[in-house]
């Protein structure tokens, strides 16, 4: 172990075997470490304790409406690209208790509940997902009101980024300016080098907390050629990207094409199943449900993920504002690439490709956006 801590911005190298030590160091510090695991034929995110929990040797094949795990020829830990879940599941959970109240004669009391103190360490956050977290930060922390639950979870979180060295089949982060390199917003960033000279990771330190954790595990200074090799691997991923969105002026293109015939065509394929919004790492919409016990002595309110594709989403007395599938798809895409810009000064899309992969109608937003510009897909 080195006596002095590695500096922020410095590049170190850890061996494959040090990953378990890294997870343990975080657990000793009280973090619940969440990382990728193989479950039900996909890479999902769960609590992990050791390197064997991770998808070692697994990769994936993704296309529109298609996802399949595939054995890799090497032992890469992060050789898959993004799975169906994003970190929003932990920072902005699918179900959160909002309020607990107890009946008190004709009145009621709002019960005081200590917020559950969870400290997450996320292992394997891709560049697009760091960008998605920045977007959620803008929504929940950067506006008029601050979401205290999100704030607590977010501020406590320790982020270990992983640079992509292989592009997923549906990715387009390069065109969104969000990846594949993790530029900032992490505590540590790993680039995996599964190569012949031994399976190792180049580690970039992104914060003092990151330096302290790295200082606790076996590491050494990265050699210049290792840094170059890591860089080349990430460049390789950028070069593999097959999809792109031309974001230039896209906000106006969408707002100006409210009546574009393409909306009818995409609506004919959309099942309004809400998959895209559930897998999207930036979709943040929620609804609230009320529950009471049988006697009615206790009432709870729960906040749950919702989707602009559901029937009741836009309901006001007299009926839903958006009845047709067309209007819902239009709301979704226009929110992502137009309204979001007005609301939060950024797009609501980071190019992770999940909505393309997980759409049963095989709808590809990059194609839809191209069509909105009047350029039909050639295929």
């Amino acid at each position, binding site marked *: 172990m080195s006596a002095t801590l590695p500096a922020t911005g410095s590049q170190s190298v850890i061996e494959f075997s040090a990953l378990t030590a890294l997870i343990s160091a975080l657990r000793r510090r009280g973090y619940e470490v969440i990382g990728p695991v193989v479950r039900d034929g996909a890479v999902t995110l769960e609590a992990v304790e050791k390197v064997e929990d991770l998808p070692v040797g697994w990769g994936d094949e993704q296309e529109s409406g298609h996802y399949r795990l595939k054995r890799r020829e090497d032992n890469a830990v992060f050789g898959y690209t993004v799975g169906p879940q994003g970190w929003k599941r932990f920072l902005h959970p699918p179900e959160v208790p909002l*309020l*607990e109240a107890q009946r008190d004669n004709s009145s009621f009391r709002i019960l*005081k509940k200590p917020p559950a103190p969870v400290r997450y360490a996320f292992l394997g956050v891709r560049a697009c997902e760091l960008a998605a977290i920045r977007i959620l930060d803008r929504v929940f922390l950067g506006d*008029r009101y601050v979401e205290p639950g*999100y704030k607590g979870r977010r501020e406590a979180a320790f982020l270990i980024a992983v640079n992509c060295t292989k592009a997923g089949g549906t990715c387009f982060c390069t065109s969104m300016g969000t990846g594949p390199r993790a530029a900032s917003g992490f505590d540590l960033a790993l680039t995996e080098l599964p190569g012949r000279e031994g399976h190792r990771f180049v580690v970039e330190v992104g914060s003092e907390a990151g330096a302290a954790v790295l200082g606790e595990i076996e590491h050494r200074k990265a050699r210049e050629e290792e840094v170059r090799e890591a860089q080349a691997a990430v460049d390789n991923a950028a070069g593999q990207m097959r999809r792109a969105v031309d974001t230039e002026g896209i906000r106006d293109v969408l707002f100006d094409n409210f009546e574009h015939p393409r909306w009818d065509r995409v609506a004919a394929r959309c099942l309004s199943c809400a998959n895209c919004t559930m897998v999207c790492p930036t979709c943040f919409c929620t609804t609230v449900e*009320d529950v009471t016990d049988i006697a009615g002595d206790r009432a709870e309110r729960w906040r749950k993920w919702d989707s602009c594709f559901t029937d009741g989403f836009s309901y006001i007395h007299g009926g839903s*504002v958006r009845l047709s599938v067309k209007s819902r798809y239009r709301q979704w895409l226009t929110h992502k690439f137009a*309204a979001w810009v*007005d609301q939060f000064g950024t797009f609501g899309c980071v190019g992770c490709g999940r909505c393309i992969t997980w759409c049963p109608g095989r709808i590809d937003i990059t194609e839809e956006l191209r069509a909105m510009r009047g350029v039909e897909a050639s295929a």
Partner: protein
Amino acid sequence: MSAIAETAAPPMPPRMITARVVSVVKETHDTFTLTVEPESPECANFSPGQFSMLYVYGVGELPISISGDPHDTGRLVYTVRSVGKATNALVNTKPGQSIGIRGPFGTSWPVDEARGNDVLIVAGGIGLAPLRPAIYRILRNRDDYVRLIVLYGARSPKDLLYRKQLSEWGRLPDTQVLSTVDYGGVNWRGYVGVVTTLFRYVRLHPGRTTALICGPEIMMRYVIRELEKRGLPDSDIHLSMERNMKCAVGFCGHCQLGPYFVCKDGPIFSYTKMRPWLDKHEL
């Protein structure tokens, strides 16, 4: 017996507090006015046009505009039309009972900016409720304004809100109050027809008139058409929009309307802002 509420750590700010129902007064066959006293009196400060999120224990939470006098301290007044589960539970609360409130939220009518002008108020149905605080404020500072014109439309005479107040206001100097109904019936001697038919009885001074409109969207669109015909610039027309609301703080996404969140960018918008969106079907 008073309600006790404690500071929780709510994921939905600002925190909900309890408010004691002081009275529930019947306005029409389906509409009631609730007066409540929030446990923290400072929570009763609001600007005309703003709304609260009202929680009925175990039933749900819903957006309701504040319809009382902004000058009153320590109390909040709401006028609620019972149309479904939550509004029904709300109008069936009894004095002494508690409800939960969050807010006030949202933008307000530009009542101060309208000083020196005529103020034209056009309301349809329950839409008069969020406009009443603006009327109260104007009447309190009557010398700051020239004429006050209130045009009000309801479905039938039995649906007219605040009838007594309307006729009192109508007797004040430089104040014109006209009500109309869609269906009159035998005993009705007032105007019959949609609210826009009242425009033939008023003279507007474009450039010196601030128009405040609240009602069903279709009604607002027709009213705006009349105002445009009479030369009112977009920036002098203001309207209150309604959308589904679950949070009121910009987190739930339900209230989106074009680039806006109605809960925090509205509910009151100038027509300058609303013009590109108002006639878009299923926006």
